[in-house]
């Protein structure tokens, strides 16, 4: 089992955090998110993203508006809700703590 497979659950768990970050920076639609994640370790696919976004919307972390596109039908543009921003802040803090622990643990 390679390092890549070992980290599957962790990457999966972090995906929501990353979505919060991406959506917080810009009002985006799914293709933008995929674009931004592609090339990173978190590259993902529509099949995963849509269910996750709909779950986050149900938890009132994100919301979307329909916007016309130059070509084709209107698209869903996602943005963070107040609750979503709150969650992002909490998760960021927690992440800082975790990565601090990872860095410092074992050092003498």
């Amino acid at each position, binding site marked *: 089992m390679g390092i890549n497979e070992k980290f599957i659950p962790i990457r999966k768990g972090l995906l929501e955090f990353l979505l919060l970050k991406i959506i917080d920076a810009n009002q985006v639609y*799914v293709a933008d998110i995929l674009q931004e994640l592609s090339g990173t370790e978190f590259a993902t696919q529509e099949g995963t993203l849509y269910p996750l976004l709909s779950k986050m919307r149900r938890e009132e972390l994100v919301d979307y508006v329909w916007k016309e596109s130059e070509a084709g039908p209107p698209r869903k543009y996602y943005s963070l809700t107040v609750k979503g921003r709150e969650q992002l802040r909490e998760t960021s803090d927690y992440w800082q703590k975790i990565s601090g622990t990872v860095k410092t643990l074992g050092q003498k």
Partner: protein
Amino acid sequence: MNKVTTVNLNGNAYQLEESGYDALRDYLDHAARQLDGNPDRDEIITDIEQAVAEKFRAALGAFKTVVSAREVEKIIQEMGPVQDATAGNGEAGATGSGPHDATTPGGGPGAAAAATGPGTAKRLYKINEGAMISGVCNGLAAYFHVDVTIVRVLFTLLTFIWGAGLLVYFLMAFIVPTASTPGEKAAAQGGPATAQEFIHRAKAGYYEGMKTFHDKQAHREWKRRFKREMRGWKYNFQREMSDSAHQWQQNWSHHWGQHPRYFVGLGFTLFILKMVKLLCFGFGAYAVYSLVTTGAVFGVALPAGIPVWIGVVFLIVLYHFLTWPLKAMLHSYYYTGTPPYGACRAVAGPLDGLVWLGFIVVLVWLGDHYVPQVHEALQQLPPAIHQAVADLKQWWARQ
């Protein structure tokens, strides 16, 4: 040259090659199954259809109006398998079939191929999502990669043959495990395996064996042994089947062949038995018909909440159960070919036929006389038959 199907994705029409259409429908069906129980299921499916449509648009141009099967496959792989984010969140990653394959950024074809590669072996499970009773049919459908309706119809049809389908169903319901963890569910749906895959695997096993030998002599020996084993298996199976069939036949004739004896009027008895059986069959068929069309049998409605098809299966089983003694009696007459009665049966046959013919004539005559509809129908028969009926009438009148 390939046949083309038009699909409607979120209000826009796209033309796909037919095999591409099948692949897309499978993908969307699978997605819907995965999201079963998710309150946003329809919305997610719509989103996914929309995304597929967008990719189709990118693949089409002014002089390209049809999406090829290969393009559809590629797009489906780009989309990746749909996974429910709410159900089994913790375990889902453990299946190792997640599309987050960092070595192929953007989730290219490699990622999806790895997800459904030979690593995930296909197993037979019961699948509860979208099941009607216990998920046996669902699991079989996923296993053999056919529509679940076909499996259900097959089981219902098998039930007609002495309830065989029902027996097999209940056995499987007990024996086959239910797919409960995401890993098992993935194995139940499996990779691209079909029934074809089995033959493929058997062959692979054969060649795997081949590889372990180096010299030609051993090669040949292995080939010979493999073939002999296959043949031996086939032969054994056939012999067992014929043996047990023989055994059954013997039991049957031994048990029933004792007391029946030819007596005057055997043809008549047979005829009455056959009539009763025909009547039973008529009743059974009518009961099924009225159940399907009106939801009630002879005024007795199906209890609420029980699907019609269960009612139909119940009726079929009931029919077999009720007519069983009748069938046994008929069999007892047919399987008494031992010498003393052999000669009598030669007489019984034509006699039987005569009785039948007489009965039909009487029936037609009665109908013609007492049922106006039958009379009218007879009048409208082609002239030749009409003539025959007239002749028959004349002959009858002369008697």
